[in-house]
């Protein structure tokens, strides 16, 4: 910078470089630009003081206004909770049959259930509730324990095979491979099971074995019994697979799934919303059917002859 170079044509100082005879003038920046720049610096200092800004080892400076993004989120969530409080309170109090009669409440329940499902249920049942081998598909019309709102709610509340919950869904299938039946017998049984849904030719020996060992839970016709959670073996839907190998494996050493009891983890309103959502997926059954099923199994003292 010792020898300042002044451009001959303009009388303005240059930056001192030259490219093929072209020199860059060192004109000052416009005044308004400079002042805008200073203003941004002043603003930045004020901002750093007012808002969280400087990162420390395990947190950042708090800022004198006390604002945090988490705090703002909590505030907005509180507003939203306030807005939904009435609906949620109604959902918590009303029995699920009353909710179904109220179109607006039902819509809210299905929407809320969809959100709750994404958080709590997709891990096993899949994002579209289509399940996977061993985890029931909730869209179809096949239910182990029943598909009306009440039954779904009970399943949600108490789970499947939850120790310590007296009302939990509990079905146990014996392992027929533990010396009960020979592999040949199990093969014949599998043939009969597959024949129930037209997947194989019937095997008279298998039919006899079925009547002796399986009909008590699955029924003589293999259509299952919901009060025991025994699956329908005569339909197209297989929880653990529908090939001969799958069936033999299940008879030999049955697998039985578990589902958490949600009564202690989710509030009653959320459980009702989940029931409403699952019911809405396409396979939901009416209460009427449920009453008939229960009527067959439980002697209801109030039932009229």
């Amino acid at each position, binding site marked *: 910078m010792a020898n300042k170079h002044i451009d001959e044509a303009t009388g303005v100082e240059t930056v001192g470089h030259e490219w093929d005879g072209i020199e860059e003038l060192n004109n000052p920046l416009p005044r308004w630009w400079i002042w805008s720049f200073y203003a941004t610096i002043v603003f930045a200092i004020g901002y750093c003081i007012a808002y969280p800004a400087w990162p420390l080892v395990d947190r950042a400076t708090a800022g004198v206004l006390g604002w945090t993004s988490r705090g703002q989120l909590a505030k907005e969530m509180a507003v939203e909770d306030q807005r939904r409080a009435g609906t949620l309170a109604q959902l918590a109090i009303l029995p699920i049959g009353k909710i179904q009669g109220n179109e607006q409440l039902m819509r809210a329940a299905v929407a809320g259930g969809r959100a709750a499902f994404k958080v709590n249920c997709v891990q096993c049942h899949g994002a*579209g509730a289509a399940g996977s081998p061993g985890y029931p598909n909730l869209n179809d019309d096949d239910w182990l324990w029943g598909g009306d709102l009440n039954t779904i709610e009970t399943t949600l509340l108490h789970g499947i095979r939850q120790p310590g919950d007296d009302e939990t869904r509990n079905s146990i299938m014996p392992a027929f491979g533990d010396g009960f039946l020979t592999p040949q017998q199990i093969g014949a049984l599998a043939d009969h099971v597959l024949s129930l849904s037209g997947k194989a030719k019937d095997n008279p020996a298998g039919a006899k074995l079925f009547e002796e060992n399986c009909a008590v839970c699955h029924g003589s016709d293999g259509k299952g019994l919901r009060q025991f959670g025994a699956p329908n073996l005569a339909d197209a839907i297989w929880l653990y697979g529908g090939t001969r190998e799958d069936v033999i494996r299940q008879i030999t050493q049955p697998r039985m799934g578990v589902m958490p009891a949600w009564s202690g983890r989710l509030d009653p309103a959320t459980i009702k919303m989940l029931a409403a959502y699952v019911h809405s997926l396409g396979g939901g059954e009416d209460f009427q059917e449920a009453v008939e099923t229960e009527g067959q199994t439980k002697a209801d003292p109030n039932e009229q002859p």
Partner: protein
Amino acid sequence: MSNLEPVTAPGAARLYEKRKPVHPQKVDGPFRRFKWLVMVVALSIYYGTPWIRWDRGPYAPDQAVLVDLANRRFYMFGIEIWPQEFYFVAGLLIMAGIGLFLVTSAVGRAWCGYSCPQTVWTDLFQHVDRLVDGDRNAQMRLERAPWGPKKIAHRAVKWSIYLAISFWTGGAWIMYFADAPTLTQEFWSGQAAPVAYATVAVLTATTFILGGFMREQVCIYMCPWPRIQGAMVDEKSLIVTYKHWRGEPRGSVKKAEKNPGAFGDCVDCNQCVAVCPTGYDIRKGPDIACITCALCIDVCDRVMREVGRPRGLIDYATLEDCEREQAGEPARPAWKALLHPRTIIYFSIWAAIGLGLLFALGVRSHTDISVAPDRNPPFMLMSDGSVRNAYTVKLRNMESRPRDMRVAIEGLPGAEMWTDEIARADAARVLTMPVPADATKPLRLYVIAPAGTASQDFAFTVTSLDEQAEMDTSETYFETPGGEQ
């Protein structure tokens, strides 16, 4: 290097020139009267259009021109545009663009001179100047005068009128986006949407600044149009020209009388500069500052008449005609300039798009179906082996009355459907559903096909159950556990 003039040296022409206020003088003549007419028509359309009513029945707004952003509808008299039909608006904008090319190619920057909002409002504000301060000389005197009671009073009155016009201008704009009478009432009772007040505030400010103070600066330094239009004008376009071969050298009437034959027709009265709304001297030739409003023609013709010389020293002419005239040929009638290949090509394109839009408008259907198959899960095996697919279907009734629509499955033998509103027990291949007026009805629709059905294409058709029987089809896919067909 040494023969260069230092541009920043004292006394050298500076790169920045401070604005010289323009105080155009009052003028009368055919072009001025045409300009008044255009201004009245343009302002009437702008301020008045939202108040035109158009009866569309009970299900649609009664405003003739309405951009209903909230409901995503665009109403223009008998036409209602939905968002997916935005190509109509795009087509109109393309027509406006090509129309501008056509006009520019034919008569130069007529848009700039007569109908550009900046020109119209500048003209209006300059008229306010003349009403409050007097004509050109009075305005310049007041400009130079020191601040005193008179100047303060004049300025206060003038700026108040500017502000009133600006406010009215901004206020008119929002009327296009909501029911005008209701919005006016809401606006004055403080119940209108904040965006309405913000829009009015912004447009009031911009009109006040651009029309009241910046004026010709907008045309000369800010606006891209003069550059583009300058490139579209050629030697066949009618533009405002000074016939220098006839006018030069300039001399006053007195000088011309003393030396007959030594001077041209231009008497150097400077009237053409005095009346120019951008303060340009047309005698320097065509320039970006000339918006071709032709007020200089009006005033020059008057001066020529007064000094007993033929009119048209400054005149609308093509550069070709100028050369011809300079060479001594007789002048061509101006209308001939309108017909040359470029104008004919532009007009053909413009008319073709217009006819295309009219055709599309004539054949468009007011019934529409769109179908999106569910992806998760893509199919559902039922216990009896049949397969169910779910679809999100949208039925559109683009008429302002409720209509029944019949939806049918085309193909997919044995399949039946039901919806979230029609129970499984009532499943059928053909369903009839009511669709509200002017609405899109979203449906969740289930299709069930018997066991053994392969994956395949099929379609939904919708037919409106009215005298028009409009139809639409949407092809989609039925997925089964078997996979590909």
